[in-house]
């Protein structure tokens, strides 16, 4: 079954029930179903074609997404928080002829940006759809492909994760079981819907026949009002909770009637858990773990074990098998470090137009997560960092070597090293250590980073060094870079 078919089913069974809410607007299942049909009707003459969706979070975005599903085409939502040049990189790599956008994004990105597309459809609240132009091209696509989600983070070309209907429905059903979501539940969507986590909130609540309240994290007052307006399940990445916990009084009031505070996109630390429990003792805290490559979710930590096992990712969600394997793909014993692998109907079809990368990640049907892990004697799994030296910055997976290369290639510097440093809200941010060349200017480096990298990658500080941060055996790694940084800071 397709995700949008659940909406049709609830439009028949419980037509008046609220499906989506955004500010003062709300929409019932029956109206939502009609609106989806209205948009889908202009997409029906496309046959399994790729459609970029460029839209801010909101009811409109969900309507468009479901309309692309309903017309049996392929949805490719763009993460609008990425800088324009990153989006252009995605578009150049993905050969997409069709775009659906909102009037807001149309005026923000400007007419020129849309010239590359043969089909341009603009959606606005007062005028449901305006077809600027339409050209139907024949495309060759994976016959099961329904949705492409971009992994967040790096400066290189983001990878498009290909998902099918089964991926989406299976993962939504697993999440419904873990969180016990029913048609009476209302979930808060305050994070980006264009990535795996946000997308899974929409899917699981709509498949359960419940509702989603849509907001954002930009302004704290409306966010707390949204939480307090009848949300039963709140979802956030760790930094979402860190931001909200800066306002303990508001947090206490807003979360008084929330049933579950769920998290994903990064490990919850003990401090966050203790603060939430202190302010809202009745809220059940449910940390979850996943990857875009697994549609969204792979593991969860049962609420009753949060106190004792908060430093683990818990166990597999229903329908998923997790294991830890050595370099020959043999399962290892408890307390031995290996790579976390996963199997289940939620594992992606592969990366869009990149078979080589797909073969590296999916071996004999197992998704290789790239996360180093150990099994505990009770079966729970503890993560021990990334196999490939990736770091988590503000809950985005980032390859420091790619950032370094991009800064080196575009600036007058000799070498650049990215250092993960503590950040109050994001958990981790980056600083740079730079071996200067003639003409290296700190202001120019800052300016380049601000304009060319996503905001969370803007360096906190830039330090000049005069030699390579080598380890004792002469290698450069995150560890040797961090050690050098500590050394430099200590001597300042």
């Amino acid at each position, binding site marked *: 079954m397709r995700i949008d078919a659940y909406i049709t089913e609830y439009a028949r069974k419980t037509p008046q029930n609220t499906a989506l809410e955004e500010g003062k607007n709300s929409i019932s299942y029956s109206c939502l179903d009609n609106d989806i049909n209205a948009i889908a009707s202009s997409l029906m003459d496309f046959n399994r074609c790729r459609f970029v969706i460029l839209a801010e979070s909101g009811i409109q975005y969900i309507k468009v997404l479901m309309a692309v599903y309903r017309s049996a085409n392929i949805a490719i939502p763009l993460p609008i928080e990425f*800088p324009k040049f990153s989006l252009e990189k995605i578009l150049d790599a993905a050969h997409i002829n069709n775009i659906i956008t909102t009037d807001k994004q149309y005026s923000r990105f400007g007419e020129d940006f849309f010239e590359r597309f043969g089909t341009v459809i603009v959606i606005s609240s007062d005028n449901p759809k305006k077809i600027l132009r339409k050209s139907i091209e024949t495309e060759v696509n994976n016959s099961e492909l329904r949705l492409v989600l971009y992994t967040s983070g790096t400066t290189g070309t983001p990878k498009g994760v290909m998902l099918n209907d089964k991926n989406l429905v299976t993962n939504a059903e697993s999440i419904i079981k873990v969180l016990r979501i029913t048609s009476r539940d209302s979930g808060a969507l305050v994070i980006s819907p264009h990535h795996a986590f946000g997308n899974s909130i929409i899917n699981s609540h709509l498949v359960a026949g419940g509702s989603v309240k849509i907001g*954002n994290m930009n*302004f*704290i007052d409306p966010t*707390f009002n949204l939480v307090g307006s009848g949300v039963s399940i709140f979802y956030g990445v760790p930094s979402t909770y860190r931001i909200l916990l800066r306002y303990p009084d508001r947090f206490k009031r807003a979360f008084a009637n929330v049933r579950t505070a769920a998290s994903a996109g990064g490990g919850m630390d003990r401090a966050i858990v203790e603060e939430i429990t202190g302010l809202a003792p009745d809220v059940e805290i449910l940390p979850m773990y996943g990857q875009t490559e697994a549609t969204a979710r792979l593991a969860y930590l049962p609420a009753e074990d949060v106190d004792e096992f908060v430093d683990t990712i818990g166990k597999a969600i229903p329908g998923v098998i997790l294991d830890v394997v050595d370099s020959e793909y043999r399962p290892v014993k408890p307390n031995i470090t290996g790579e976390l692998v996963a199997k289940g109907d939620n594992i992606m079809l592969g990366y869009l137009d990149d078979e080589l990368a797909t073969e590296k990640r999916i071996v004999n049907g197992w998704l290789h997560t790239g996360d180093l892990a150990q099994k505990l004697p009770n079966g729970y799994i503890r993560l021990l960092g990334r196999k490939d030296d990736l770091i988590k910055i503000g809950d985005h997976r980032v390859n420091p070597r790619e950032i370094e290369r991009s800064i080196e290639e575009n600036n007058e510097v000799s070498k650049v090293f990215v250092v993960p440093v503590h950040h109050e809200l994001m958990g981790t941010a980056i600083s740079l250590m730079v071996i200067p060349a003639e003409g290296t200017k700190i202001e120019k480096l800052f300016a380049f980073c601000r304009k060319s990298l996503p*905001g969370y990658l803007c360096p906190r500080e830039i330090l000049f060094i005069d030699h390579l941060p080598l380890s004792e055996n002469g290698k450069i790694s995150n560890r040797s870079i961090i050690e050098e940084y500590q050394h430099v800071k200590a001597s300042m």
Partner: protein
Amino acid sequence: MEQIKNDIVEYLKANSFMDNNSSLNDNDSLTQNGIIDSIGLLELMDYICEKYSIEIPEDMLTPENFDSLQGITNMITTLAK
């Protein structure tokens, strides 16, 4: 008033996605134009509190007060009185 506005523009140019030569109208949305994100807003708030020695009550953290140059300037003027 103009001085406050200039300070904020300088801050945004130095700390956000705003271009040095791009012009920002007083009522343009900072979030919808991609100039600033949620973490950036909190940092801007800390900067304002420190620079103008004011405390911003939580119920003032709304789009009306924080999403445009004009809104921010008005808010600072009100609170600094």
